[in-house]
């Protein structure tokens, strides 16, 4: 009896697998799954990835179908979500948060036929089906720094970050270098909230910076929305990262960095479809167009817009590098000698801040 039941179950399983396979052969769309670390309506990091997903589905209509899971914790839960997506037929998985790699390594070993893409995290362990993508976002912040330095009256800029990790410090440094390229007297005050998402603390940090004399507040968090709202309430300019918030805070928005992930996802998925995809670590600079300079707020003077846009163009056309020596850190130590520019390795390991940044990590 038990054997008959097992046999029956086995038959059912057998029957299911060929069905799936034949679906693919008959030109069924490729299923692509996305894992997001937060809500896709956050006006920040997660929403920009979701916008990229929607772009992918529109751009490759008929060829690709997408699915996503939001607010997925960076724990073994991420692995379960990946398994569920794969069970529903996903052949490509994009993990858009740093901490998913550990779960991914386990799931990827079980599913050699599925392509996995991890964002912003170098993996020591190589798998034939795991690729890593590093889209750089710091270059637009260099131009944003120029705008901030031109607009500030107090010569003091505030910068709020969630955590002081190399990826974030690259953004703080690029911003500061941009600001000091046009106004060497500018100081940037760095405040860390120890969380990617803690709106109350972000609002209080904004107030603290404004009280200390800063008149432009920049932030690198899951979303810059709370900081921009808090700054607007104090009639203080803001610069954002990840998402264009010009419509949300029209009077006080200067500019910032925004993502354009759509073409990046199309590029990777096309590689998977035509078989040219490789399990490599890929860096994407602003040249590729995935990290953009956000729109300018209505109060930014024309001349400043032109200056910032030109600086960004010089970067994207490789005429100028953001981290071009000589660059000294805040303690005066020479980090990048004259004539040299920072390579990817240097940017990945950036645990120092340039001179002009005040606050944490300045010695």
């Amino acid at each position: 009896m038990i054997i008959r039941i097992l046999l029956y179950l086995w038959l059912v399983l057998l029957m299911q697998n060929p069905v799936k396979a034949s679906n693919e052969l008959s030109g069924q769309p490729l299923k692509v799954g996305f894992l997001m670390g937060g809500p896709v309506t956050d006006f920040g990091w997660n929403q920009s990835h979701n916008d990229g997903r929607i772009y992918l589905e529109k751009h490759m209509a008929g060829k690709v179908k997408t699915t996503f899971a939001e607010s997925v914790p960076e724990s073994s839960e991420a692995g379960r979500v990946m398994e569920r997506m794969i069970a529903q037929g996903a052949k490509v998985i994009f993990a858009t948060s740093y901490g998913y790699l550990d779960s991914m390594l386990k799931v990827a070993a079980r599913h050699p036929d599925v392509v996995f893409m991890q964002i912003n995290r170098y993996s020591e362990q190589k798998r034939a089906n795991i690729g890593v993508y590093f889209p750089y976002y710091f270059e637009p912040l260099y131009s944003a720094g120029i705008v901030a330095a031109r607009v500030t009256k107090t010569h003091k800029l505030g910068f709020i970050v969630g955590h002081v990790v190399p990826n974030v410090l690259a953004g703080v440094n690029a911003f500061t270098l941009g600001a000091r390229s046009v106004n060497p007297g500018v100081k940037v005050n760095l405040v860390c909230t120890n969380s990617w998402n803690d709106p109350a603390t972000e609002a209080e940090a904004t107030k603290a910076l404004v009280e200390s004399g800063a008149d432009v507040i920049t932030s690198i968090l899951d979303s810059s929305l709370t900081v921009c709202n808090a700054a607007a309430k104090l009639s203080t300019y803001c610069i954002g990262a990840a998402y264009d918030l010009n419509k949300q805070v029209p009077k006080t928005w200067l500019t910032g960095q925004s993502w354009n992930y759509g073409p990046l996802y199309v590029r990777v998925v096309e590689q998977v479809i035509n078989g040219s995809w490789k399990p490599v670590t890929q860096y994407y600079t602003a040249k590729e167009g995935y990290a953009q300079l956000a729109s300018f707020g209505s109060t930014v003077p024309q001349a400043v817009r032109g200056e910032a846009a030109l600086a960004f163009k010089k970067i994207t056309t490789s005429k100028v590098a953001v981290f071009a020596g000589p660059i000294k850190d805040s303690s005066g130590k020479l980090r990048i000698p004259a004539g040299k520019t920072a390579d990817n390795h240097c940017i990945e390991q950036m645990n120092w801040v340039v001179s002009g940044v005040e606050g944490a990590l300045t010695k």
Partner: protein
Amino acid sequence: MNIELSEFLIAVAAGMVRSATPVLYATLGEIITERSGILNVGLEGIMLVGAFTGVAITYQTHSVGLGLVAAMIAGLLLGLFHALLAIYFQANQVGVGIAMTIFGTGLSAYLGMDYVGKQINTLGTFKLPLLSDIPVIGPIFFSHDILVYATFILVPLIAFIINRTRLGLTLRAVGEEPRSAAAAGINVELTRYIATACGAALAGLGGAYLSLAYAQGWSENITAGRGWIAVGLVLFASWNPFRALIGAYLFGGAISLQLRLQAAGLDVSPYLLGMLPYVLVILVLSISTARRKNAPSSVPTALGLPYIPQV
């Protein structure tokens, strides 16, 4: 230098009052709840639902007042639900509280998706005339919004009700000796229902303070652990509203101080500074409990225990 320093300290103190207020509401609510013998560790979830409801109703009605009332009602309903499970079904109260946290987190995140980034009316600053002009005291205590001022009245009021009125006596009797209270003709279960509902309503209001006055909008997990801090502060306060005020100000002061030290350009690890509020709470908690080792315990005797009426 001295003028700069005094300005800095005043700014820190004013930030302390603001940062403390949401936690203070939740702590005061929990004191009322626990004095009746019900333990509600689900404050985090209730605050989140309150924060979301406040934003949603304010967005729909354009009235912050209605948003605040709705947040209190949402908290009240969750409190009643907690009480129902804890009293009628005699479920384990810690378990129910944790379930409430998970439920509130998920519910607010799910319903709140459409409200992220919505521009809403927010609770404006209302400088109290005359009082806000007093040097030092004015900018620290009287240059905020009405919900901050309400705590100045609420703390002594709750202390007075608990310690000096018949209502408070009833509450304490139910929390200490429910059977004796029942023998004296008190409806133990009804008292506990009301206390839990009122406590949760205050927690909901604390949550709404975060979204309507502080962050000025909804975002997922906006409380970032403040509900749990409130649960801890009740212990620190040993169920005394005035000590709750001190505890909340210590916590808020640590947040305010560490952010302003960073803003002033002090070179200290932000991780060390970020730990300050929590280390302070733990430190004060351990000192305050250690000191009273030989003194009679202030824990409500029947706290967390199901009440089984004698038959």
